[in-house]
């Protein structure tokens, strides 16, 4: 379970919070879509969740553990797929997976079994011996996804995970997200692909300018907005010209 309680992040002397008193609970066994326009605060929220940043105010808890108090313990529970190709790309795919497995203290047998399964699933077995800097964008994304799963995390955090993936890999990833959630894990991901969010997510939240503007199941959101698609609702809620007018309950 993920809990943001009044989580706020202000960068330096900025007069505006990048994340403004975000209160949000993501239950176990849920695929949670985190939506918002560019610069809305999605990556900031994910950075607070993964312990890369500390909140200026409020708290973030993962399975009851406070990120500020026990950052290492929280990180141990999270598998994180970052946006923007953040990885040690001078390593080979195998070296990278081994490195992540070492950091998360995964046994040899487990890491081998999981790596072989996921490498095969994403058609990366042959490429795993090559350096990551020789990979295409999609292949890097696949290795990043596999690395995040190598320790079977209780919480899986993905920042724009579909970017660069081919249709097959994208399909496999969505299946995996569903599978993990059904097995009791929490899957938290940000995306701009609203169709994916609508079909895949158990719950969706939309933020704008660091503030949560709505949350609920895709079905609930559609009902509240008079049967609009998620895309139409998103456009309406995040339209700056209509700021403050389009907020839809459930806050």
């Amino acid at each position, binding site marked *: 379970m993920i809990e943001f309680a009044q989580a706020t992040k202000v960068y330096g002397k900025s007069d505006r919070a990048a994340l403004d008193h975000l209160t949000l609970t993501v239950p176990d066994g849920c695929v949670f879509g985190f939506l918002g326009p560019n610069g809305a605060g999605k990556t900031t929220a994910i*950075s607070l969740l993964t312990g890369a940043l500390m909140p200026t105010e409020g708290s973030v808890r993962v399975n009851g553990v406070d990120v500020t108090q026990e950052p*290492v313990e929280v990180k141990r529970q999270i598998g994180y797929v*970052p946006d923007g190709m953040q990885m*040690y790309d001078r390593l080979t795919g*195998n070296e990278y997976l081994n490195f992540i497995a*070492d*950091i998360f203290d995964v*046994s040899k047998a487990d890491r081998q079994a999981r790596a072989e399964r996921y490498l095969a699933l994403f058609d990366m077995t042959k490429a795993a*011996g090559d350096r990551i800097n020789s990979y295409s964008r999609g292949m890097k994304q696949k290795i990043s996804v596999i690395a995040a799963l190598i320790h079977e995390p209780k919480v899986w955090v993905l920042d724009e995970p579909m970017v660069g993936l081919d249709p097959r890999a994208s399909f496999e990833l969505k299946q995996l997200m569903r599978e993990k959630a059904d097995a009791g894990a929490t899957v938290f991901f940000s995306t701009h692909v609203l169709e994916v969010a609508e079909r895949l997510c158990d719950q969706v939240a939309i933020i704008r300018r660091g503030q949560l503007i709505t949350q609920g199941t895709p079905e609930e959101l559609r009902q509240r907005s008079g049967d609009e698609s998620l895309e139409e609702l998103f456009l309406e809620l995040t339209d700056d010209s209509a700021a403050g007018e389009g907020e839809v309950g459930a806050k």
Partner: protein
Amino acid sequence: MKNYLILQRVLLKNDLMGLNPFAQSGEEKASAGKLVMRRIGVIVLLLFAAGSVCFLEYELYQLFREMGMREMALGLAVLVGSVGTLLFGLFQGISSLFEGKDAPLLAVLPVTSRQVYAARVTSFIVSQIGTTVVLVLPAFVLYMLDEAAPVGFAIRAILTILLLPLIPVAIISLLATLLMRVSAFSRHRDTIVMILSFGFAIAYALFVTRLNSSADNQVNTIATMLTKDGLLNKMLGFYPPAQWAVSGLRGDWLQLLLLAAVSLAAPVLVVLLLGGSYLSAALGSGERSTRRHSRQQALSWGGSGQLMSLHVLEWRETLRTPAWLYNGLAGVIMFPLMMGVGFYSGFSAASTREGENLIKMVQSLAQTPEYAGYVIVIIAAIAAMGSMVNPLVATAYSREGQNYPFALSLPVKPLTRVWAKLLVGLEINAVCALMITVVMAVIFGVPALLAACGFLLAQLVGFAISAISLVMDLRHPRLSWANETAAIKTNFNQVISMVLWVILMGLCVVPVVLLWERGGTAVLLSVCGVIALACAVSVVLLWRVGRKASAQN
């Protein structure tokens, strides 16, 4: 021409922005008071660094002046300014020309390959002019103050500063471009570039030695060599442009004209020769060859603890990044190599009776028990140079670059990460110190026990400097850089680390000077005391990093 100028302006602006010493991460978090203090600190450190160069050159100048050999100071400055670029600039050249992330962008713009190459070479020249200014200006100014016609000298000095880097840059650009072509499509490109670059540096050093020793045959005695022009000619003889520059500075306009003609022709020729195919080579350097069939042994699944795993990661990152490897190992290889070359030259010179006697005298002093303390301190001081020239520790966090946020998301205690990085630096320092100690022990016949003590003391200096530098980089990493060389060269933390080294050495010199007459043991103990204090400071800083782990990462 228009496109070249536009491109040039953008590249120069980008390079200059990258040099801003105030642009360290964490500026946005600091309060106004802290920000002002930090900026004052940066300015003080910059002044200190500049002051150290000025002081060194002032002392050298005064020494040569007293010997009636002012021109030697000019000669030394010119040599350091030009040959230094030639010797140490190859990897910077490769990075500047081939490792920029903008090659794919430039390749689709309506500019010719030659224009891009010319703009790159010009940027490289400008960066080297900056380095030349820092290295030669103090000596030039001191010389000018003693000149009867200072205005004429000032004009010649400005021209010389602008011209000096051109030939080294042209040679480096030529070598770098050829090197990138040779290794273009090999899977082991980085290794090839690495080995050939070090090979070039070593070959160049040996070439210089050979010229020196052949010069020794002509200059039969040290007494003859120590005439004003004899020594100057010997020093500059192996690099004619340096000789032209010094003659030009001394008023020979024809020599200056010769320097200008060759200096301007060299880069133009290189651009004309190699510019046409530059972009394809630059794009090729971004390509990575892959195996058709992945090797089965690559699929072996090992396991180790967090510290070891992070430590191995640090080594892999370093070994697989030529710019970091070269900069990190430059001290390890080049410094002992230079000492070895000096030793070799010394023996060549020792064909004369004076040289032989000099070496014997130093050897007998090193083996006298009363001087044991002095010997240990001297060995430690020279062996600890490695911790000054090794930039990897002071930039360890900055070099994470865009991976830094991801690294923070890993469940690792900050102290574990610090130690993984620190160990790499300590290991490199140890190898460097060991090689220097061995070279010195062989040259001066130092007893093994004294050499070992000197080595250990150097390790403590290395630990103190490395730990403090690393904690500084942890607190203020500079994560945004254009290429791997820039990650090191434009990082102000590296300057701070070098200044720390100078300060620590300065603090050690004080008791040495005060207690010199009281004997070697007193000197050794006092130096050990200063180093112990520095180690204590570094341990406290590490302990504070460890304490933070429980509250905030």
